[in-house]
């Protein structure tokens, strides 16, 4: 193989590109793919096969390539399984063979090929069964080391990728004759068209065949159409873009190779993952040529005829002495055209009788073997009952064409068998709104492709409500396609079906003998079609061999299921931007900057970031800080940003009535200026959330939700209103973002407020009042989540940062300060206040001891279901407090509770721990737990058992309110 002196429509010979393969330096030119440049440099051996480590070379010129999977160095890491046929060459490209050691020419694992008789289908299933104990320690690691194609980079990859959306009226997939025609007709009629093409260049097979259209070379005709399309504002041409999946609702997934062909792409995304929504789509994906299963058909130098033509025409690769083995008229016509163009075609072999004249020798017969250690040098054929050998550098196979119909099958549709082309063709409407045209629909002549493309475009325009007159079709070749199927050559030796996964015709026969005769079983037993190429070249052949072995017909045997993606899609593209801060939106409170300045580590609460604790230099660990902050609140005053709680404005003449319906307790009896604790149930009777409800004025309420449940609650309230009370006079809207709100808690809270407001309003416990703070209208609530006398002060968010600074400074002046989530948790556990650690979706109001809050005087969401049998009673897990018998003995959330004399078995489990803390006030570990019949068991001792952390300790069951059980500190 070498580069021809002239030709190569894809090449810009003026720009030489240096690259390396397996450490050797080579030169290619601009426009080359890695595959074409290797071939032009005479490199035929590019890798080793998956199982037998057989030498392998480039077979195809497209994304279906099963053999030439290489590793490419990019952004500092070796990326595996790069198809050499799809990787465009750039200056400095560094590639290497994979699946071989120490080198692709001398690969140690090639010994597998000699062991092939033992390594047939099901080898691993049969061999590594016994003894069982060997599996984890020995067999699995050995198999893992030997298996796999390529190795993933072992470091994080941060090279940029992108995700994007696109919308159009018509998506045309493929830019060959049918796709171009369809895009042209639709675009001229004014439709918004996206034309996607997998290759760098548009034009499909017009780029590599030598046909004529309207008396001009078809390549020139295609260039003219493309120029016309490029001028139209309603057309978007997307080369280097593979549409890989068809999904519900006219959504198509596509992957664009944005910068993989650039030597120094910088911050340009390497790939872009497109989600294209199209009202209609035209599948003009062409057809894939299939190999013929003859002995030793996997030798480097054995290629698809269409690929040989493509490398010749587009990349000026001279394949040397060529023998063609075909079984269809298209193959013979291609061979003649290539010979006329100067290719050294030595012979054409076809099992059919060949009557036409040809400028090369023709043989009626079959190829029964190939020779050459690392690459082909001779072909053995059987002709009129005798064997003969032909010297050759390249054996070009053409077993016919399979419509590339994968996308059509992505929504579970099954294609039908077409006897005239001996392949499957798509049916109508397998994907709603998508129509197959041209070769993808089994229409192989150029005229047929143009005609079907134009017709599908007219139909699409009609569906889109656009009118157009049918175009005059250009003159093009319209020869019928004749084929006599040849699935396998009957001869001695192994004949490959699936090159990527090393599946031979014998493996399929063996699968049938061993009872795996259905296509789905055969596939899994032999791994046929399960390699990165997904059996694009081999599935139909394997099906035919299976049908032969079982004595059935091909359509009767079935078809394989094609699933997305049509081509491999990198995880990097699917997850583009989704690492680090891009993983999810981050929500920051107005006190965030100040909190970070104070050195607080942040903890995620939903999407919000809240301070864990505020460290000081003398702290031994975080618990020192936590204890200190909890004691601020118990003895002085603490400040905490509580803006992350959901806040919902509920207004209107029927607002109170509505709140009565969504809360278990009654809110309509609340007086303006007062706040009430409220409980919401789900309709199934379990607790959804809790919070406060403040009546700001007669028709204006402000309710709060927990931080984590804010989204769920507003969805729920919107549902209740829109589903059951649409005619009530009320509206709700989130004001979470509008207000910055801070807890001021502790015995000195009033003193602090005095400094801040000048005059502390005489506010009763659970009262609220508008106040002015620092010249700004604010709201003051006397509520407490700590059990201390306390307030929450809310200001418009723009003043939040400044107010927080003032509050913390004032608190510090009183011997208190800011407290974080750890201290907040300690304070609320001491008081037995619940959070979503306890409200875990399975608890009822009864379980929490809040059954008294479910009013019997009115209906509410969840009331009927909360009274179902099984949701109340002694069998329920009920909220209790836990104290370890030794107060200093650590206890853990997630631990289970057992009777002291029973083992840690599920049958004896009586409950589990939801939250724990160390209370610096009570100088003891404390826990909140759910325990069977717990309220009746205060005083009992149980064993807390945390199998995960190896912790066991006796605990005493008690009232969940550990501190100030009468609530005098916060109320009086």
């Amino acid at each position, binding site marked *: 193989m070498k580069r021809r002196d002239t030709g190569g429509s894809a090449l810009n010979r003026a720009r030489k590109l240096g690259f390396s393969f397996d450490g050797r330096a080579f030169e290619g030119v601009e426009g080359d793919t890695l595959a074409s440049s290797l071939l032009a440099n005479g490199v035929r051996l590019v890798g080793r096969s998956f199982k037998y480590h057989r030498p392998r070379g480039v077979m195809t010129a497209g994304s279906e390539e099963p053999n030439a999977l290489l590793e490419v160095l990019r952004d500092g890491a070796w990326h595996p399984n790069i198809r050499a046929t799809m990787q465009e060459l750039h200056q400095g490209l560094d590639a290497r063979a994979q699946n071989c050691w120490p080198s692709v020419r001398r690969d140690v694992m090639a010994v597998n090929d000699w062991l092939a008789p033992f390594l047939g289908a099901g080898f691993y299933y049969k061999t590594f069964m016994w003894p069982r104990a060997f599996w984890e320690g020995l067999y699995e690691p050995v198999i893992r080391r030997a298996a796999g194609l390529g190795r993933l980079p072992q470091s994080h990859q941060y090279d940029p990728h992108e995700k994007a959306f696109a919308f159009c009226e018509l998506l045309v997939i493929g830019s060959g004759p049918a796709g171009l025609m369809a895009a042209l007709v639709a675009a001229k009629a004014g439709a918004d068209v996206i034309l996607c093409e997998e290759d760098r260049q548009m034009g499909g097979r017009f780029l590599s065949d030598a046909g004529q259209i309207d008396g001009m070379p078809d390549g020139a005709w295609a260039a003219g159409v493309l120029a016309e399309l490029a001028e139209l504002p309603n057309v978007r041409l997307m080369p280097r873009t593979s549409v890989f999946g068809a999904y519900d609702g006219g959504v198509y997934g596509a992957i664009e190779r944005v910068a993989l062909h650039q030597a120094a792409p910088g911050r340009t995304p390497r790939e872009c993952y497109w989600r294209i929504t199209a009202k209609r789509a035209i599948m003009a994906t062409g057809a894939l040529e299939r190999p013929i299963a003859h002995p030793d058909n996997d030798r480097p130098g054995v290629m698809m005829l269409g690929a040989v033509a493509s490398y010749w025409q587009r990349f000026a690769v001279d394949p040397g002495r060529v023998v063609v083995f075909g079984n269809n008229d298209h193959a013979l016509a291609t061979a003649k055209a290539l010979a006329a163009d100067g290719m050294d075609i030595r012979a054409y072999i076809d099992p059919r009788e060949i009557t036409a004249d040809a400028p090369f020798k023709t043989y009626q017969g079959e190829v029964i073997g190939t020779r050459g250690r690392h690459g082909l040098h001779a072909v053995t054929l059987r002709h009129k009952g005798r064997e003969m050998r032909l010297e050759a550098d390249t054996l070009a196979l053409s077993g016919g064409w399979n419509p590339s119909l994968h996308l059509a099958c992505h*929504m579970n549709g099954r294609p039908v068998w077409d006897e005239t082309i001996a392949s499957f063709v798509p049916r109508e409407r397998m994907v709603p709104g998508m129509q197959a045209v041209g070769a993808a629909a089994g229409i192989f002549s150029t005229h047929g492709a143009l005609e079907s493309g134009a017709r599908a475009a007219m139909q699409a325009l009609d569906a889109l409500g656009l009118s157009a007159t049918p175009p005059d079709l250009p003159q093009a070749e319209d020869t019928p396609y004749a084929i006599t199927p040849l699935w396998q050559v009957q001869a001695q030796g192994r004949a490959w079906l699936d090159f990527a996964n090393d599946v031979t015709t014998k493996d399929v026969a063996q699968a049938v003998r061993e009872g795996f005769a259905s296509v789905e079983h055969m596939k899994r037993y032999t791994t046929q079609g399960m390699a990165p190429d997904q059996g694009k070249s081999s599935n139909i052949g394997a099906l035919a061999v299976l049908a032969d072995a079982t004595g059935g017909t091909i359509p009767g045997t079935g078809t394989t299921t094609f699933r997305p993606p049509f081509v491999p899609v990198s995880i990097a593209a699917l997850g583009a931007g989704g690492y680090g801060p891009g993983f999810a939106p981050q929500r920051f409170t107005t006190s965030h900057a100040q909190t970070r300045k104070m050195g607080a580590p942040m903890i995620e609460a939903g999407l919000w970031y809240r301070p864990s604790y505020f460290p000081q230099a003398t702290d031994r660990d975080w618990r020192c800080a936590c204890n200190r902050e909890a004691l601020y609140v118990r003895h002085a005053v603490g400040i905490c940003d509580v803006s992350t709680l959901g806040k919902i404005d509920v207004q209107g003449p029927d607002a109170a009535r509505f709140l009565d319906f969504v809360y278990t307790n009654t809110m309509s009896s609340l007086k303006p200026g007062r706040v009430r604790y409220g409980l919401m149930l789900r309709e199934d009777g379990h607790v959804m959330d809790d919070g406060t409800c403040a009546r700001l004025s007669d028709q204006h309420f402000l309710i709060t939700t927990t931080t984590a449940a804010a989204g769920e609650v507003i969805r729920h309230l919107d*549902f209740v209103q*829109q589903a059951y009370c649409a005619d009530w006079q009320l509206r709700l809207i989130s004001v979470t973002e509008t207000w910055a709100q801070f807890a001021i808690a502790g015995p000195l809270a009033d003193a602090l407020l005095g400094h801040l407001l000048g005059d502390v309003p005489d506010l009763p416990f659970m009262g609220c009042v508008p106040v002015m703070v620092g010249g700004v209208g604010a709201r003051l609530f006397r509520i407490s989540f700590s059990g201390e006398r306390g307030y929450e002060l809310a200001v418009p968010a723009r003043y939040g940062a400044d107010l927080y600074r003032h509050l913390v400074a004032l608190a510090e002046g009183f011997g208190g300060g800011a407290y974080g989530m750890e201290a907040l948790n300690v304070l609320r556990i001491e008081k037995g206040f619940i959070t979503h650690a306890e409200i875990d979706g399975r608890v009822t109001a009864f379980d929490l001891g809040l059954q008294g809050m479910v009013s019997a005087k009115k209906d509410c969401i969840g009331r009927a279901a909360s009274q179902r049998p099984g949701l109340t009673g002694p069998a329920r897990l009920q909220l209790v407090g836990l104290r370890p018998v030794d107060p200093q003995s650590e206890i853990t959330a997630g631990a289970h509770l057992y009777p002291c004399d029973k083992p840690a078995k599920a049958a004896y489990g009586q409950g589990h721990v939801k939250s724990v803390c160390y209370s610096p006030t009570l100088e003891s570990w404390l826990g909140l737990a759910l325990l069977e019949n717990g309220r009746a068991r205060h005083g009992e001792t149980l064993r807390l058992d945390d199998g995960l952390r190896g912790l066991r300790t006796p605990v005493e069951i008690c009232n969940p309110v550990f501190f100030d059980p009468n609530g005098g500190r916060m109320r009086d």
Partner: protein
Amino acid sequence: MRLPCPCCGWRDLREFTYKGAADALHRPALDDPSGWDDHLHNRTNPAGETRDLWYHDPCGTWVCITRDTVSHAVISGVPLEGAR
């Protein structure tokens, strides 16, 4: 998958939150325990046309979607008021 919001038109699935079957639109009477069992738990799971409820998060509209579980066709989307 794309769903029609009565306010916003056809939108991507990622903008919606699923609730469940449209049975939720009809609350039984408070004193009808078996009615509540059906309401909460029993579903017909049809092969074919079904109605279910989706929240269009960006605009806050609950939508009753009629769709086909066999063909995956999405047939219509209406506000809850019109769905009962």
